[in-house]
C-alpha cells in the first residue's frame, strides 16, 4: 500500500506544476538501507518510478533501464598456467575498476534500446563498467582478463543482465525487482535509472542503497580489524571454554 502511495506521489510530482516541456523520470527504491546481519540470505530490491514524456507517444516508443552498481574496487586477475605438469597461478593483472555487484534490468533487449554511443557515454553495458586502463606489456590478450571478471562474477550471481524485466505501465509508471544475493559486500550501491527513446537517453535519475554490516557481524568485523590481538585472544578463550564445557558436560552425563 505504501508503495502505491509512493508511486502516486511521484506521479503527481511529475504532472504537477512543472511547466517546462521536458521528458523526465523519477524513481525510488523499496529500501535505502540494507543491514548485513548474520541471518542475511539476500533480498529483493524493488525499484519503481514515474515517467513523463512530452507529446503523445506510441505505447512501445520509450524504454527504461535500471542499473544497480555495487562498490567499485580493484581486482587482481590471475590466469592458471601449466608448469611442470601442474596448473599454477600466473602473474596477476590488476583490473583498475570493477563493481563488486552489477545488475541491469531493462524493458527490452539492451542492444536494441540503447545506441552504442549512449551506452558508452553512460557506461551501462557490463563490459563498459569493468575498466582495465593499462595492462602490463606481457599480457597478450587483455580482453581475456576483463571477460574473466565478468564471467566469474556472473557465475557467483554478482553480475546480471535481465532484459525485459522492467514492467512499463501506460508509458507513465514502471517497476522492476532486482535480486540482491547473500554474498554482498559492504558499501554504497548506486541505482541509476535511464529513460530512453529511439536509443537515446532522455533523462536519468540516481538513488542509492547503503549496505552495511549490522549487529554481531559488524561488531566482529570491526573488532577483527581494530583490535586484532584482543580479537585473536578472545577467539582462543572462546575455543578453550567450548572445549572445557563439552568435556565437563560429557563427563557428567556420559561417564566412562
Amino acid at each position, binding site marked *: 500500500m505504501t508503495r502505491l502511495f509512493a508511486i502516486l506521489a511521484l506521479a503527481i510530482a511529475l504532472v504537477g506544476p512543472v511547466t517546462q516541456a521536458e521528458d523526465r523520470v523519477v524513481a525510488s527504491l523499496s529500501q535505502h538501507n540494507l543491514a548485513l546481519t548474520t541471518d542475511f540470505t539476500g533480498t529483493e530490491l524493488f525499484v519503481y518510478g514515474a515517467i513523463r514524456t512530452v507529446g503523445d507517444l506510441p505505447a512501445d516508443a520509450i524504454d527504461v533501464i535500471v542499473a544497480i552498481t555495487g562498490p567499485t574496487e580493484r*581486482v587482481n586477475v590471475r590466469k592458471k598456467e601449466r608448469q611442470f605438469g601442474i596448473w599454477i597461478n600466473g602473474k*596477476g593483472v590488476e583490473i583498475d575498476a570493477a563493481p563488486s555487484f552489477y545488475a541491469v534490468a531493462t524493458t527490452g533487449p539492451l542492444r536494441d534500446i540503447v545506441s552504442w554511443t549512449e551506452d558508452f557515454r553512460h557506461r551501462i553495458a557490463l563490459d563498459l563498467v569493468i575498466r582495465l586502463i593499462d595492462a602490463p606489456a606481457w599480457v597478450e590478450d587483455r580482453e581475456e582478463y576483463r571477460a574473466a571478471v565478468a564471467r566469474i562474477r556472473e557465475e557467483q550471481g554478482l553480475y546480471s543482465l535481465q532484459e525485459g524485466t522492467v514492467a512499463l505501465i501506460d508509458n507513465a509508471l514502471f517497476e522492476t525487482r532486482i535480486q540482491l544475493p547473500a554474498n554482498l559486500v559492504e558499501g554504497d550501491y548506486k541505482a541509476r535509472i535511464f529513460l530512453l527513446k529511439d536509443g537515446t537517453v532522455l533523462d536519468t535519475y540516481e538513488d542509492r542503497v547503503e549496505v552495511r554490516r549490522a549487529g554481531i557481524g559488524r561488531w566482529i568485523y570491526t573488532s577483527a580489524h581494530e583490535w586484532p590481538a584482543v580479537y585473536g585472544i578472545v*577467539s582462543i578463550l572462546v575455543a578453550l571454554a567450548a*572445549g572445557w564445557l563439552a568435556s565437563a558436560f560429557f563427563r557428567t552425563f556420559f561417564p566412562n
Partner: protein
Amino acid sequence: MNIYLPIAEVSVNAFILLGLGGGVGFLSGIFGVGGGFLMTPLLIFIGIPPAVAVATEANQIVASSFSGVLANIRRKTVDMKMGLVLLAGGLVGSAIGVQIFAGLRTTGQVDLVVALCYVVFLGLVGSLMLVESINAMRKAKKEGRRVQRRRHNWVHGLPFKMRFRTSNLYISAIPPFLVGMLVGTLAAIMGVGGGFIMVPAMIYLLGMAAVIVVGTSLFQIMFVTGATTLMHAITNQTVDAVLAVILLVGGVVGTQIGVRVGPRLKAEQLRILLALLVLAVCVKLGLDLVVTPSEFFTLGGGAGH
C-alpha cells in the same frame, strides 16, 4: 538455516558446518589428529575463501584438541614433558609458517603451495601408515601376538638426552623438537594442527606407545593452533568468529564421542581406515592440480582482502 559470515563475506548453511565440525571432531578424538587436513579442504570446497578457512580452522582445532586433552589428562595418557618439547619446536615453526603464508598471499601462490603441501604430506603419511598397519596386522596374525616395535634406531644416538617418564623413554630432545617445528610450520601454512604428521612421527620415529601419543599430540596441537590463530588474527585478520563458533560446537561434541569410542575399537584396523582417508584426500587434491581446470582465471582483491 543460512548464516552470513562477517569475515568470509559469504552465506553458508549452519547445519552443514555443524555436521562437518562433528565428523571431524570425532576423528580427532579417536586418532589424536586435529582433523584440519580434512576440514580445511572441505571449507574451501563449500565456498569459504582459503585464507579464512585456514585461519578459522586453526581456531576450531584449539577447541576440539583442548576438549580431547582434558579427557586424556584424566586418564593420565598425556606426556606433558614430551608435549612441551614438541611445543617449543611448534611455536618456532608456527612463527615461520605465518610469515611464509603472508608472503605467499602477496604473490598469489597460497592456493598452490597449500595444495602441494597437502598432496605431498598426505601422500607420504597416508602410504607409510597404510603399509605399516598392514604389515603389523599380518605379523600379528601369523605370530598370534602383538608385535614389539623397534626400540632402538638412529634417533637414540643424538645428544641432549632427556627422560620422558610417562612415555617410558630416554631419548634426545632434538628429534621431538624438530618434529614439533615441522608440524608448527605446516600448521600455519596448511591450517592444520599437524597431528596426521605428528602421530606417526611419535609412534615410528620416537617410539612412543600409541596410548600416550593421542593425548600428547592433542596437547601440543592445542598450543600450536592457539598461537597460529593469534598470529593469523594479527597478521591477516582472517579468523571468522562466527564460522569458528559453529564449527567448534560441532567439533567439541564430536571429539568427546570419539575419545570414548576410540579405545574400544581395534587400533590397527582404525589406522588403516585413517590411512585410506588421508590418501583419498591426497588423491582428490592431486587430481585438482593436474586435471585441466574448467575455469582458468581466479579473482583476488586488489586491496583489503
